[in-house]
């Protein structure tokens, strides 16, 4: 079997001095190119789980493997570099540096990931291609990101996440700031591009209606247990 895009096993983590919030995840996996919608309300451990997957924090025990690499075995700096190489991140909102040009924002991850940069080749051309494929207007590359509409900003965020085809895309409620019509187009575009790039998608949302577009829909509470020590 090929390496999974993401695999968690026997993970346990607790925030130091954060009211003793702790999270356990016995097992969770995401195949290559698979798309999974993770349903969960805020406070269900969503942020902590994403921090673990992205290597912002390291698990206290167990393994978090992205593309076959155990993040826990990497040092802090190496985890940051690994994230840059292998994971594209899309936030709910305010994805972009508003003072940077669209091109700067899209190319930003490449600044921290030499291998991804190599994979891309002509990075400006690739950024322009992504912009065009995502239905962004011509000449958007030189526009300051802060001047775009929210919907356009989210598409630029997709381009940034996808450039260099990282094996895993993590999206944290990327559609919640969009209206229903834009949401649909956005997901359509996102999936077309991730399929093309062969990237697995892990999207977190509280909106069950998005589910039919995904290979699998999982409830967060089914894979993750959280406990908050009595304060």
């Amino acid at each position, binding site marked *: 079997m090929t390496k999974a895009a993401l695999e968690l096993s026997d993970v346990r983590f607790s925030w130091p001095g954060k009211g003793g919030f702790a999270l356990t995840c016995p097992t969770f996996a995401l195949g290559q190119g698979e798309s999974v919608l993770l349903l969960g309300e805020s406070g269900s451990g969503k*942020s902590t789980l*994403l*921090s673990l997957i*992205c290597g*912002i*924090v390291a698990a206290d025990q167990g393994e978090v493997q992205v593309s076959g690499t155990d993040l826990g075995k990497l040092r*802090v*700096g190496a985890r*940051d*570099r690994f*994230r*840059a*190489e292998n994971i594209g*991140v899309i*936030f709910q*909102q*305010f*994805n*972009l*540096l*508003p*003072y*940077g040009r669209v091109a*700067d924002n899209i*190319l*930003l*991850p490449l*600044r*921290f*990931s030499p291998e991804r940069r190599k994979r891309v080749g002509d990075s400006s051309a690739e950024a322009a291609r992504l912009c065009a494929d995502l239905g962004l207007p011509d000449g958007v590359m030189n526009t300051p990101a*802060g001047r775009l509409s929210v919907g356009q900003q989210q598409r630029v965020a997709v381009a*940034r996440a996808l450039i260099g085809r990282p094996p895993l895309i993590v999206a*944290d409620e990327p559609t919640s700031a969009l209206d229903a019509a834009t949401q649909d187009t956005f997901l359509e575009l996102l999936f077309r591009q991730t399929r093309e790039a062969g990237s697995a998608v892990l999207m977190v949302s509280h909106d069950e209606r998005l589910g039919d577009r995904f290979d699998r829909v999982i409830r967060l509470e089914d894979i993750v247990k959280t406990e908050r020590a009595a304060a």
Partner: protein
Amino acid sequence: MIFRLAFGSLIARALTVGMTILAIALSVALFLGVEKVRTGARDSFADTISGTDLIVGARSGSVQLLLYSVFRIGNATNNVTWESYEDIANREEVDWIVPISLGDSHKQFRVMGTTNEFFDRYKFRGGRSLDFAEGQGIGDLYDTVVGADVAETLGYKVGDPIVVAHGLASFTEHDDQPFRIAGILAKTGTPVDRTVIVSLEAIEAIHVDWQTGAKSAGPATPVEQIRQMDLQPQAITAALVGVKSRLQIFGLQRWINEYSEEPLLAVLPGVALQELWQIVGVAENALIGVSAMVVLTALIGMMAMIFSSLNERRREMAIWRAVGASPVTILGMLVLEAVLMAAIGAALGVVILYAGLMVFQPWADAAYGIWLPIEAPSLYELQLLGAVIMAAALASLVPALRAYRLSLADGMMVRI
């Protein structure tokens, strides 16, 4: 790209960043300005006298003697008798000696009695001689030579009559004996520019009818009669001395200082200047200290500005983290931001400094005789600018370390 984004981030916050940069620029301009005035004043003082081996006057302090004889600052406490002057002049070691007699004034300028030899012997700025812009030296008893500033301020030309006032701030004028301007000296940048020079005899002549500081009653002695009188002065204020060999300076100095007929003082101009710097140094250090504090204040302002921006930029930090920037990169970006602000502030400060110099240079020269040269920044000034930028980098470490900790804790998950 990071550099461009850091720059873009600054421009996005143009107002607060602009204020901070302005504060740094003004403090840097003040700091460099104080430095310029300090070195300008020192150079102007040091350039004032050269080629003179000893200054001789009545016994007082060496700094005081230097100040009143060369810089026309303050007054002599006592005079040197003509006999003492001649005794010194007759010494074997003495190559030349120029007497100086002070005490009268013309408008706001001081009058100095001396001999024509003064124009040959007085040297400034590393051995340069006095030049006549117009006219010539003193030929007649009532001839006078004025400095460049005197001529310019009062609009004098060669041949104009002038009247000398008694004392330094007096309305009593020696108006019975008008002088004629025989020559105007070229600009020197020394107190000579602000001096009215007459012959020693002329000083005697205008005081013929004066006894112990007051005009004696009765009709004034006619000029024709004065011209017939023996106008050999009884006393002078000071004398500039050149020796034949530099080896003899200390011997002659000791001889003068131990002169038994009357208490005299001989000083080496350079040594007296050094003593002056020691006195002035305290005030200089205070000025430097104050202006350094102003720079420090501006940097603390910048630190506070970065601090207060951190909270609203947590989202921005999260984006950087998400695309793979390490907390160290974020720390580095904040330091870079501070260095950029300080560098722009320092550059702007230099611009303000030069603009200020252009405006104030003529004024400082005219009012204080301090020449502030407009020239490329010295190595020392560049080092100062570098130190300001370094200090900014250090100051920014405080908020940057906080951002470092915040970005470790927040990671990429900040809810706004």
